[in-house]
Structure formats: structure tokens, C-alpha cells
């Protein structure tokens, strides 16, 4: 595996008033890997991710994403990343094609590129028949696949996925991970948060956040060995229990 560091985080901290959501976390993400970012609800995953994608200013610490400092070059960071939020965030009142056109357009793709990409994407997702339908009419699983593809429109180096499979059925979840694998195979770095521990097993490396700090970071295999358990689920429970 290419060991070039594409994300480099050092002592990253975010406080809201007297509450510290993210407590001085440090980690690296290698180019091309699938990095799982795990943690219970409220552990600070989303806050940490928002700092990495440049929409939340760190209180202290440093983070370099794709070679750009998130504090001072957040707009450059945004050019190099794709983001899919846990809340479906395409325009419900636009059709699939119109959504693709819009997001392609604001990432600076030309009309010709957009046309090509749209055709490609609709073919790959098998959305030919609904391409001119409003996005609101799509089932959730399809919406998520579409969001993922749209996040990749501008061919970013890293794509951030915030609980991409929340509320999605197992088959679609499976298909979704196949898409993630395919994309990682092309060399795109995947940074994904999830609640599903079976999904954690698919990652090259995972970090587990507990109450704002990273408590564990390794490959799923090593973590299971370290905690002497058979599944990631047990690793997670052990870590979470220590807190209580």
C-alpha cells in the first residue's frame, strides 16, 4: 500500500463554550485506504469530520488534508474533497439530472464534462428510467448511492462519508460498500463514519472515538487481537464500557 499520508491530524481540538467535543486528537490517513471513523452517538465524530472538511474552525491543533491546512486553506481543501452528509442533501425539488448538473457546475466542471459524467453515472447506477424524475421520488437507498456518486463528480482525492448507510436495507448496504471498494480501488481515499460494526470490518484501518478522544486506532484484525475478541462489535463494546 502506498504509505503517503493524505490526512495528517495533530492535537485537533474543538470546544463549544465549556464543552470540549473533540479532545486533542491525532492521527494519519494513508492515501488510498478506507479509513473507518467509529464512535458512539455524541462521541465527536461529526464535529471532527466537519473540521477536516473545512466547515468548522478548529479551536486548536492542526489538520492537513490533501496537502492543505484546514485552518488557513479551507477553500483549497474543499476542491480536493467530496462530502456526503448523513442527512440527504440534494435538492428534492430538482430531478436527478438537474442535481448532477448543479453540483457538477459548482465544482467547476464544464457543460460537456457534466453531460458525459451524467450519462456515465446514470448508466452505472441504472437510473435511466428515473433520470428526469424528482429526487424526492427516489427510495432512500438509491438516494444514498446517488449522493455518493455526486460527491465523486469532481474526482476528489478524498471522500468523506458521514454515516452513509444509516437506515438503508442490508442489500443496498452491501451494494454501497461495493461502490466504496470500487472507488478505493481507483486510488480515492475513503474516510467513513459508521455505527455498523460489520462495516468496520470492511475498513483497512479504524479509529474508535470515545467522548472526544481516539481510544483505539489500528486495522480491524489487530484491534480484535489486542482486545482478545472475535468481532469489532466486541472491541467497540469493551471500549465503550470502560467509560461507564
Amino acid at each position, binding site marked *: 500500500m502506498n504509505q503517503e499520508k493524505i490526512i495528517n491530524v495533530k492535537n485537533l481540538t474543538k470546544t463549544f463554550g465549556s464543552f470540549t467535543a473533540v479532545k486533542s486528537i491525532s492521527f494519519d490517513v494513508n492515501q488510498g485506504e478506507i479509513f473507518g471513523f467509529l464512535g458512539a452517538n455524541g462521541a465527536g465524530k461529526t464535529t471532527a469530520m466537519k473540521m477536516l472538511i473545512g*466547515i468548522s474552525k478548529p479551536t486548536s491543533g492542526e489538520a492537513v488534508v490533501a496537502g492543505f491546512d484546514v485552518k488557513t486553506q479551507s477553500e483549497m481543501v474543499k476542491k480536493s474533497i467530496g462530502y456526503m*452528509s448523513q442527512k440527504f442533501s440534494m435538492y*428534492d*425539488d430538482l430531478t436527478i439530472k438537474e442535481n448532477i*448538473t448543479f453540483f457538477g457546475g*459548482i465544482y467547476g466542471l464544464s457543460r460537456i464534462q457534466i453531460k458525459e459524467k451524467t450519462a456515465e453515472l446514470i448508466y452505472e447506477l441504472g437510473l435511466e428510467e428515473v433520470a428526469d424524475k424528482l429526487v424526492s421520488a427516489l427510495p432512500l437507498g438509491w438516494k444514498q448511492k446517488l449522493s455518493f456518486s455526486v460527491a465523486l463528480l469532481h474526482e476528489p482525492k478524498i471522500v468523506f462519508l458521514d454515516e452513509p448507510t444509516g437506515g438503508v436495507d442490508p442489500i443496498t448496504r452491501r451494494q454501497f460498500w461495493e461502490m466504496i471498494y470500487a472507488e478505493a480501488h481507483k486510488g480515492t481515499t475513503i474516510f467513513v463514519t459508521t455505527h455498523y460494526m460489520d462495516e468496520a470490518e470492511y475498513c483497512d484501518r479504524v479509529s474508535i472515538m470515545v467522548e472526544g478522544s481516539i481510544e483505539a486506532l489500528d486495522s480491524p484484525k489487530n484491534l480484535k487481537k489486542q482486545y482478545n475478541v472475535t468481532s469489532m462489535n466486541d472491541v467497540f463494546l469493551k471500549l465503550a464500557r470502560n467509560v461507564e
Partner: protein
Amino acid sequence: MKTILFIIQKEFRQIFRNKAMLPIIFVLPLLQLLILSNAASFEVKNIQFSYIDSDHSAASRKLITNFKASSYFKVIQSFNSKTEANHEMQKGKVDVILEIPNHFERNLIKEKKSSLSVSINAIDGAAAGIENVYITQIITAFNQNIQTNLFQYNEATYVQPQNIVTIPSFWYNNTLNYKTFMVPGILVLLVTMLTLFLSSMNIVREKEMGTLEQINVTPIKKYQFIIGKLFPFWVLGLVILTVGLLIAKLIFNVPILGNIGLIYLFTSVYLFVILGIGLFISNHTETQQQAMFIAWFFTVIFILMSGLFTPIESMPQWAQNVTLFNPIRYFVEIIRMVMLKGATFLDISFQFFIIVLYAFILNGLAVLSYKKVN
């Protein structure tokens, strides 16, 4: 620039996909102009008039006939006693009670003077004031007639009554047509309200839906996003103005004496002010509901202090000073000046530059308050 076009394209698609939008643009202005222009009139008509005639003389009857002849008064009743009349006033059935005392005619002839008592329902003070003027006019006219008639019987003391007759000439609206005055003002209200509400709800809607976050992780520039967002509403504002002006001309036949280009020039800058306010509200609220409340709050103050319904000159000095910060005030002034007086650019340059300044300040604030990073 290309990015901006993509946003504008998207906004227009969303605007026109919204089924309520076309009626808002074309039907609302029509309804508001038709209803408000006819209803929001300060002319006091159909005054419920009653009297107590204790004299029963030729003179008293003549006086009452004069009231009956007036188109402003509706003589509804005569009472025998003041108590009875007061009772009806309490119930809200009558607006005016004229009391003609005993010996009204006799005193008029003998002492050359006589008195009348008039009671006016003054719950609406402004209307009562106007009613008082009408009543006084009728009584004065009656007085002059009666003097002339009575004094002719007495040659010795006959004096030609000294009258000063004023002949008013009403400039800019010589038939005193209320609609001519109100329609341009209501048009201002319409353009302002629609653009303010639509723009203030717009960005906050994306916040609610979560799409704003998605926008904020793209490398889009703040100014691109804002221009792309507001341009469609700017166009919409001008379309509404056009629809309104057409209605004003075709249905109300309001004169447009000045250069219509001047109205468009002013409106195009004015819309920036309104859109800036809308954007500012959008940036400082989290839900469409909050945005709507704040937009309403400002609209109500702006409208009541704009000189649209009540003259600014009759407000207390401090309130007059406050109106200087009210963009609607300037638009109301301008549109009336240009349409009814045929004002030129030179005449409106003061208001124009204030609005330009206002547009810069508000949009500056709005752009500053829009944050891609928290």
C-alpha cells in the same frame, strides 16, 4: 461567472417548479391592487347623521335639508331628546348628532347669532376631524345664505355679507382621485413584501433541508453563491413591478407622467436593499418560521412609517427622523413623484443616492454575516 449561472439556473428551476409561484407573481399583485386600492381610502363617506330639531322653524328645516343634500351624510334619524340620541351614539348607530335649539331662527334674526350643538363620534379621531370640517362647511354655507336672505327684509341695516371665497386648485391630482394616490404606493408595498419574504426564506430553507452544508463544502465563493441566490429574486421583483404598473395603467388609469425608466432604475437599486435585508435575516435565523416572523416585524414597521398610509409630516419629530432609515419611505416618495408629478432624475437624486448607499451597507453586512465556516 459560470458557477453563478449554474446557481441561477437551479434557483429558477426551483422557483418555477413551485406551483404556488406563478399565482404569487401574477394573481397576488392583481388582487392586492384591486382590493387595497379601493378599500384603503381615507375619504369619509356615508356618515350616519342624526339631528334633534327643537326649533321646527323654516331655518332649521332648511339646515337639515342641506345635510340631506350632501353626498357625505346619510341622514338616518331625527330624535326628540338628547338622551335618546346619546343612547344611539352609545350603540354605535350614529356618528353625528346635530342639535338645533329652541329659538334658533328667532335668535338668528334678532341677535344675528345663534348656536348649534354638534356631537361627533371620535373613536376614529381622523375621521371625526374630517366630519367636523364637512359639518362646518355646510353650516357656514347655510349661514351665509340665511344672512343674505334675512337681512334683505331690513333695508336699514342691510350690509353686503363679506365673503372671502377661496378657489382651490389641486395640483398633480386635480380630481383628488384617491386611487391615483394609493395605487403607486401599494405597488411599492407589493414589490417590497414579495421580494423580502421570498429572499429571506430562501437561504434559511437550504439550512433547514441540509443542502446548505453541502454547498459549504464545495469550493464555491461566497459572492458567487449570494449573487446566484439573489439574482432570480431581483428579476422577480422587476417582473412584479411591471405587472403592477400594467395593472395601474390599464385598470386604474393612473397617470405615468415621468420617465418610466427612472422608476425601473430606482427599483433595481431598491431591490438590492430589500434583498440585502432578506439575506441578512436568512443568515441570522435557523428556520423559515423565524425568518418569516422577523421579516414581518420589519415590514410592518417599514410600511406604517413609510408615508404610505399616513403623511410623514404629521408624525412627531422623532418618528420623522426614524423614517429617514426606512427604504420604503424613499420608494413611496419616488414612485409618487415620478408617476404623478413627472419628476426627473435631478428631483429624485437625493433619495436615489441614499438608496444606493443603503444597498452597499446592507449587502456588505449580509455578505459578512454569511459564513461558510463556523
